[in-house]
């Protein structure tokens, strides 16, 4: 048997070191030129420098590609430059918000905030007194309540639109789309005027949940509809051809196949409402005391906690509380998203 030598695996298509160095050189020159432009011309500041750098970098890469290759490649590089610019512009606010909240918020974080509420602390007390457990619990209860109301309604609406496709499908689709543009204050006022004032005459967490549901249902229904439309018709036919009723096919085949998409619908629904302040303000009261009962008495929430700390505060301690509350809200959202992604991805592999 002859010995075959196995060649070393290579990637002949990847960029060579020389090319990388050339690109790095071009970018370095652009950096110098941008520095010079800021010194010598009317441009100034970080923004001016960034604009000049982008201008010189894309220009130099364009020229380099034109010399090394051809016009088509040069145009290609120009498109890449603009795509990179757009990506950066998108990233800046996100990174800025997250970093600001972290940098300002960590000062407001202390262990006691998860055990205390604000009944005994005032704006002038040190940050370590009081806490936001009432707001955290309130947010979880109200969002959970809204989810319990919205998910079945949203999913069934989506099933009506995609599976039953009744005569009302078109107008309902239009209404759901229109409903997703309802301002949150309107949702709050709606619950206030049809439930709170005429019937319950009490601001409670349940009313907050219902107001949030009005905002959440269209988001869940629309996303779930899109996810269900992605399920190939073959699977519905296969289910029905096995002697299943439509309901069994939907519950046994279509919905399980769309599971990860439906989790996305829930994530987007939660994302839509978790930071809502206006409806909470109107119908759930926004208490400083911990309240586990959504059917009785006012209930706090994180957005309300932040709003109150900023509005009634004016002291350094109050601002620290507000930023701390924002950080907790941000972390809560991240945890929920991570959890949802984990749950939806677990069985798919």
């Amino acid at each position, binding site marked *: 048997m002859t010995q075959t030598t196995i060649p070393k695996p290579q990637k002949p298509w990847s960029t060579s070191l020389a090319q990388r160095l050339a690109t790095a050189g071009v970018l370095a020159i652009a950096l110098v030129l941008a520095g010079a432009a800021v010194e010598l011309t009317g441009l100034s500041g970080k923004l001016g420098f960034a604009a000049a750098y982008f201008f010189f970098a894309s220009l130099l890469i364009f020229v380099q590609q034109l010399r090394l290759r051809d016009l088509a490649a040069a145009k290609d590089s120009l498109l890449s430059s603009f795509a990179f610019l757009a990506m950066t512009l998108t990233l800046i606010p996100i990174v800025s918000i997250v970093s600001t909240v972290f940098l300002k918020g960590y000062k407001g974080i202390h262990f006691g905030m998860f055990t205390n509420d604000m009944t005994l602390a005032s704006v002038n007390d040190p940050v370590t007194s009081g806490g936001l457990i009432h707001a955290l619990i309130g947010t979880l209860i109200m969002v959970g309540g809204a989810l319990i109301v919205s998910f079945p309604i949203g999913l069934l609406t989506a099933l009506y639109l995609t599976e039953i*496709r009744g005569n009302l499908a078109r107008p309902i689709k239009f209404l759901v789309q229109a409903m997703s543009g309802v301002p949150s204050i309107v949702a709050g006022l709606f619950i206030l005027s049809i439930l709170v004032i005429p019937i319950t005459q009490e601001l409670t967490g349940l009313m907050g949940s219902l107001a949030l549901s009005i905002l959440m249902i269209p988001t869940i229904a629309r996303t779930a509809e899109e996810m269900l439309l992605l399920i*190939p018709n*073959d*699977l*519905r*036919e*296969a*289910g*029905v*051809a*096995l*002697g*299943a*009723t439509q309901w*069994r*096919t939907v519950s*046994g*085949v279509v919905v*399980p*196949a769309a*599971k990860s998409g439906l989790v996305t619908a829930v994530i987007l629904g939660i994302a839509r409402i978790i930071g809502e302040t206006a409806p909470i303000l109107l119908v759930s009261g926004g208490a400083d005391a911990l309240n586990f009962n959504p059917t009785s008495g006012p209930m706090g929430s994180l957005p309300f906690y932040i709003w109150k700390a900023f509005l009634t505060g004016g002291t350094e301690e109050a601002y620290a509380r507000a930023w701390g509350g924002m950080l907790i809200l941000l972390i809560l959202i991240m945890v929920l998203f991570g959890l949802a992604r984990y749950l939806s991805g677990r*069985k798919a592999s």
Partner: protein
Amino acid sequence: MAPTENSNNENNMEKKMQTTTPSSLASVAGNREQRVPGTNLLGTGLETRGVHAWFGTKHVLSDVSLDFAAGTVTALIGPSGCGKSTYLRTLNRMHEFIPTAALAGEVLLDGQDIYAPGTDVTKIRLRVGMVFQKPNPFPSMTIGENVLSGLKLAQLKKSNTDELLESCLVRAGLWSEVKDRLGEHGGALSGGQQQRLCIARALAVEPQVLLMDEPCSALDPGSTFRIEETISELAKSMTIVIVTHNMQQAARVSDYTAFFLSDGGPGIMVETAPTSKIFSSPTDKRTEDYVTGRFG
């Protein structure tokens, strides 16, 4: 699967492939053991009387009357767009799954019209199973769950599902390949294996008729051969109707062949006869032109 068995299969397949040039289709069809209608105890078969079909106002199928005797394999052949798939879907009421669909005529299963008012459509589909052109295993289920999904979906009570699972996979010719990986997802299988999984799934609810809509058109020759073997095996216990674009396949697997054609208007059934006759001495000129490859 043992390596020797594998190579045997390939040899067989090559032999069959070689003998199936259009001119020798008739001899291939002649090789198949002729089954006599009505010798099987599985009901009296399926008949259609003057079936027409529409999509919206478009008349796609005109006046098709055909008998499928119990325990036979019938191939429906014809050029694309001649209505043979539409016709197949009228046989288990999948036609009505398309919102604009309409129908006239009778489809009799054991003498009962499956379109008669008050007929439970899900019961009909349990008795007349279907395998689709594209393999479509349920993505959220494992291989084992896929096979038994019909029981769950139709809410049939079965004891001893393990035995049923094995027997369905054996009959579909897939058992030896998947017996150690029943817990994996169906998507992990190759296209040909997925199609055999879909056949096993259709078998689990024990239909008396199995409809196959171009079951091999998305598959390679090796998988096609395995499925044709499966069809021959299944024909012992059920009635099979298969739509195919592949005339060699029709010649290899079927007892009877029906030729469909559309001249721009609705599709019609031109001729039906024992398969060997269709490929050796068809009555109609158009059938002869088609099976000898002069058009289509």
